[in-house]
């Protein structure tokens, strides 16, 4: 028997989610490989191909080519961030960190909130850095349009959280999540993000997952009009852009749901 010690002040639910999020954000930022690919690489891409080409100042929609390129590369950086964050979150849970967290006062739902906040913060970083780079170079858009594209770029990266999650759930390895992130280069190319596509590539590209979110983020700038090297450009109606985003969001989300359901093992 213990002597009459003072009972612990046991309070339910008293945890500091904000501090946990801040520490998790710093941890992910410190991951040099991640930060390089998510922030430094897209910014360098933009400075080479978006800010210093002869045609960078040519007009597109209500802005210029540099802005048109900046938005797409920011979408690429943001999608990489959410993919790798969601993928690594799935791995963390499977590697037992979820069990460790289940031994704290934090409910499981709060872990998802925390990860979502960190993922959006990580996605916002390349978008902010790229847009600042755009501001200080030649990118040009009306301020209202500029803000709208920033919001759409960050929001558009969310379907890729499901994509990363699905990869993390199915392959359970860091390498697979890395490969999924790497694959975004190709998807971005097909998504009309790096250079204006035309012909067959554009027809194929319209059905790939990056196409919708890039086109959506550019919509305030272009109103759906396409940019083409040769001149003859078409236009994407808004419904088509939204249909692409919605379809791929559903595909990735359903994949996550099915994978989650098929997991019956303890760990």
């Amino acid at each position: 028997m213990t002597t009459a010690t003072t009972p612990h002040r046991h309070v339910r639910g008293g945890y500091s989610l904000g501090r946990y999020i801040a520490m998790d954000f710093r941890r992910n930022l410190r991951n040099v490989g991640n930060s390089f690919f998510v922030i430094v690489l897209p910014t360098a891409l933009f400075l080479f191909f978006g800010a210093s080409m002869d045609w960078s100042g040519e007009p597109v929609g209500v802005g210029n080519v540099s802005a048109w390129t900046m938005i797409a590369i920011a979408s690429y950086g943001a999608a990489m961030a959410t993919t790798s964050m969601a993928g690594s979150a799935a791995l963390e849970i499977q590697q037992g960190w979820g069990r460790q967290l289940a031994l704290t006062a934090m409910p499981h739902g709060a872990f998802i909130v925390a990860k979502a906040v960190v993922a959006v913060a990580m996605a916002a970083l390349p978008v902010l850095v790229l847009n600042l780079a755009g501001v200080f170079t030649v990118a040009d858009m009306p301020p209202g349009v500029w803000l709208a594209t920033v919001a759409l770029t960050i929001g558009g990266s969310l379907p890729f959280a499901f994509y990363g999650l699905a990869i993390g759930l199915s392959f359970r390895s860091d390498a697979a999540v890395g490969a999924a992130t790497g694959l975004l280069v190709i998807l971005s190319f097909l998504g009309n993000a790096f250079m204006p596509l035309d012909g067959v590539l554009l027809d194929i590209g319209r059905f790939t997952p990056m196409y919708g979110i890039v086109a959506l983020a550019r919509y305030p700038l272009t109103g759906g009009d396409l940019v083409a090297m040769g001149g003859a450009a078409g236009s994407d109606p808004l419904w088509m852009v939204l249909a692409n985003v919605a379809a791929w969001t559903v595909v990735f989300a359903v994949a996550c749901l099915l994978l989650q359901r098929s997991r019956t093992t303890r760990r």
Partner: protein
Amino acid sequence: MVSESVISARDVRMSFPDGAGGHVHAVAGVDLEVARGEVLALLGPNGAGKTTLLDILLGLTTPRSGDVSVGGLSPRAAVQSGMLSALLQTGGLLPDLTAAETVRMIATLHADPAGVDEVIDTAGVRPFASRPVGKCSGGQQQRLRFALALLPRPEIVVLDEPTAGMDVAARHEFWGRMRAQADEGVTVVFATHYLEEAEQFARRTVLMDRGRVLADGPTDEVRARAGAAYVTVSWTPTAAELAQVPHVLRADREGARTTFRTEDSDGLARYLLTATGARGLTVRPASLEEAFRLLTEDSPTPGDTEHPVTADSEEVTA
């Protein structure tokens, strides 16, 4: 001494799909009462259901049926209040955080945590506090998990094979630290498959196999039952001589050698060497697996040969 029960489990059952359309009964009707301040060993071979039972006590797994309460609360509520904490068997750590960062990060998620520096010292994490977890040895990671378990200043600590992967010195040191906690009145429930650990540290042992409790009592008593041994001698006794040998559970003859299974190897050896013509005596302690088999078998008949028990053919009788 009548003490208050802090863990109470009644007829807890849990099964998992076995992948072939059936179910594996990981926990098949367990009753368990643990008193405040008690140190209890949950002893059993791999696959006995220890981890599943501990997961249920911690609220990490919801049992198929049965009632569990910890300190009068549901397991999850007990964990959230900080009353109940645990050291988990594997995983559970992020390799890119340092040990100290891990403690700080988990501390943010407890309502009323102990000081980070305090648990780092108590658990012996200080020497490698600034090392990334991925570069820590298995024993160091266990110490870190121990520090995390101390964070909520728990009244009840559950340990799932806490010394797995530790060398002898680390194991000794770990139990020293754990004993200090128990001396302060912390209730400790730990799973192990080492009989020695149960003997050295727990006053009470619960023996588990295939989801059931086979024995529950003071460790000495359980040890006597589980600590069966085999005594082999060169001797060809007559049936009458054989019948006089004390402390024998079973005898098997193989050529000129006779093997006795016994719960008192000293007494049997003393008799064989002094009262009979037996020579060349060897004693082999039964492994834990064998001990479990003895406890699960029906009353043995002399002259039987050993049959390995297959998982699905034998009805378990506790």
